[in-house]
């Protein structure tokens, strides 16, 4: 395993009487994408703020790029990039000026700053919008520019705080591809998200936070195995087929449960590939399928399974 670029050990953060983080530890090796999964108020953003030197921890230690975030904050700032939940770009400036400003602040000459800005605009497909004020950008463009701004200095570690929240599906996939590319180029990524699907697609390791504590960590496969079931929901074309359908599936060892509507049934399956099995069984039983849906376990399922707590609970104040 490569040396950790981000290392948090028992990090505690209190705001008055409220404990936002209750001893969180994680370790992210070079060039890997680490997911921080949790609902609003779980403490994800607080941890990101501590690791990016915006907040000081109340207890525990955190090192980024090998430097202590409190004692060596200046060195940490030299090697990180942060993209927050809201675009950290200047709306009054255009795309190119935003990137060039960041480069100038990092010590680039005017010429170097412009070159780096153009390079990143190209990379993030923003060249056409380079001279438009950011005020006129769409949500997806803004987010891309924001990520680009975090990358101007070629940081070794980048923090992405809910980079896809509020984006449409297309823009979301664009951001995902960017993140994958970052890791391929050797950047270590800490990504916070509320979506298990996103963490599953991108991350090598996932830490699940709930109310400021780590409730699980591992790779996505381990996590999902722990959480278990994906569900296939079949809506039948004819209500009277229900009995035959359930019987056929159960004969094949699949536990099917008719739903209250009387036209749909649901059954747990191990993987998406098992959909085909369900379809074949039902067609062999001469039952006609009107609709087919497959659902991955959600963060709610993870929470329910791991914490046995009702979901969507805010941090106790």
């Amino acid at each position, binding site marked *: 395993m490569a040396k950790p670029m981000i290392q948090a050990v028992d990090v505690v953060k209190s705001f008055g009487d409220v404990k936002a983080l209750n001893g969180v530890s994680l370790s992210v090796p070079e060039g890997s994408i680490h997911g921080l999964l949790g609902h609003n108020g779980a403490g994800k953003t607080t941890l990101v703020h501590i690791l990016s030197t915006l907040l000081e921890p109340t207890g525990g230690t955190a090192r980024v790029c090998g430097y202590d975030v409190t004692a060596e904050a200046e060195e940490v*700032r030299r090697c990180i990039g942060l993209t927050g939940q809201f675009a950290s*770009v200047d709306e009054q400036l255009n795309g190119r000026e935003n990137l060039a400003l960041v480069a100038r602040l990092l010590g680039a000459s005017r010429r170097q700053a412009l070159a780096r800005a153009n390079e990143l605009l190209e*990379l993030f497909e923003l060249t056409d919008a380079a001279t438009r004020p950011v005020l006129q950008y769409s949500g997806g463009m803004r987010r891309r520019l924001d990520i680009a701004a975090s990358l101007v200095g070629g940081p070794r570690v980048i923090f992405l705080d809910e980079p896809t929240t509020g984006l449409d599906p297309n823009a979301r996939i664009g951001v995902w591809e960017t993140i994958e590319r970052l890791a391929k180029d050797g950047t270590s990524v800490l990504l916070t998200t509320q979506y298990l699907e996103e963490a599953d697609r991108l991350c090598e390791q996932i830490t699940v936070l709930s109310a400021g504590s780590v409730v699980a960590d591992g790779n996505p496969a381990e996590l999902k195995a722990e959480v278990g079931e994906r569900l296939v929901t079949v809506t039948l074309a004819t209500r009277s087929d229900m009995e035959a359908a359930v019987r056929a599936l159960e004969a094949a060892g699949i536990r099917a449960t008719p739903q209250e509507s009387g036209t749909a049934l649901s059954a747990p399956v191990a993987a998406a590939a098992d959909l085909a099995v369900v379809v074949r069984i039902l067609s062999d039983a001469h039952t006609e399928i009107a609709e087919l849906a497959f659902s991955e376990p959600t963060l709610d399922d993870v929470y329910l399974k791991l914490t046995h707590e009702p979901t969507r609970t805010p941090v106790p104040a």
Partner: protein
Amino acid sequence: MTVIDAEATPRPTTRPTLSVSEEWGGSNLLTQTLALTGRSVRPYLQPGVLIVTFIEPLVMLLMFGGVLRALGDTVAPQGSDLSYIAGLAPAIMIITSVAAGAQAGNGLINDLRNDVITRFHTMPISRFSVLLARSLADAARSLYQLIAVAVLAALIFGFNPPGGILGVVGSILLSLFVGWSMSWIFIALAAVLRNGDVLRMITTLCTFPLLFASNAFVSPESMPVWLRVVAEANPISYANDAMRSMVAGQASLTELLTTVGVSCVLVAVCAPIANRSFKVL
């Protein structure tokens, strides 16, 4: 050939082989301040904003020129034969620059609401440069207005004082400096309070007495005793005296040094408070 082409146009990458601290070596306070001032000045450069910014001193000149003149010729320094406008123009200048300085607090609050400041705080730059840039951006706006006051006063009221162009330029610069130093009061307040509503109330509460309990419009001799004490201690009165002398062609080194000294004390007290309280979270 292919190899050379590939080297000439390298594939853009998210991450250059060298990290920036190695390649670019970081920036100094001057570069940071200039780059950030350029950013903060940007909203002021929109045509609409430029026009309104220009109209502000025009309205003040016309208003005070008309209204106060009706009260009688009370603002010229004792014993001088300055024209009414020559006595009024410095007062309008100091109002203008103090108002611009007070605006710096709101500017900082707006900046704090904008997440770009969060980015600056995660970068290897001086946080003080962000505040310095804020104060300089409002000083730049103030300079534009001060020039407008001088030009409009000359065009509309025939402002052509004995102190000549040198006296006028001197007044503009002194006024600029005083306004800039006062902006640190409001930047410090904004950094400590971090609340736009409270800040606006305090700003209004401070600026009115500062402006009116001074010798800017009415000579303190005609004020009740308690108000006269305030007016004579008011830094704006010092500035005003120094500027009127310059405009009259009788610049006084004592008045100048006193004014600059008071302003420097203001900055020396407020800037460190602002810097220490300046946090994004």
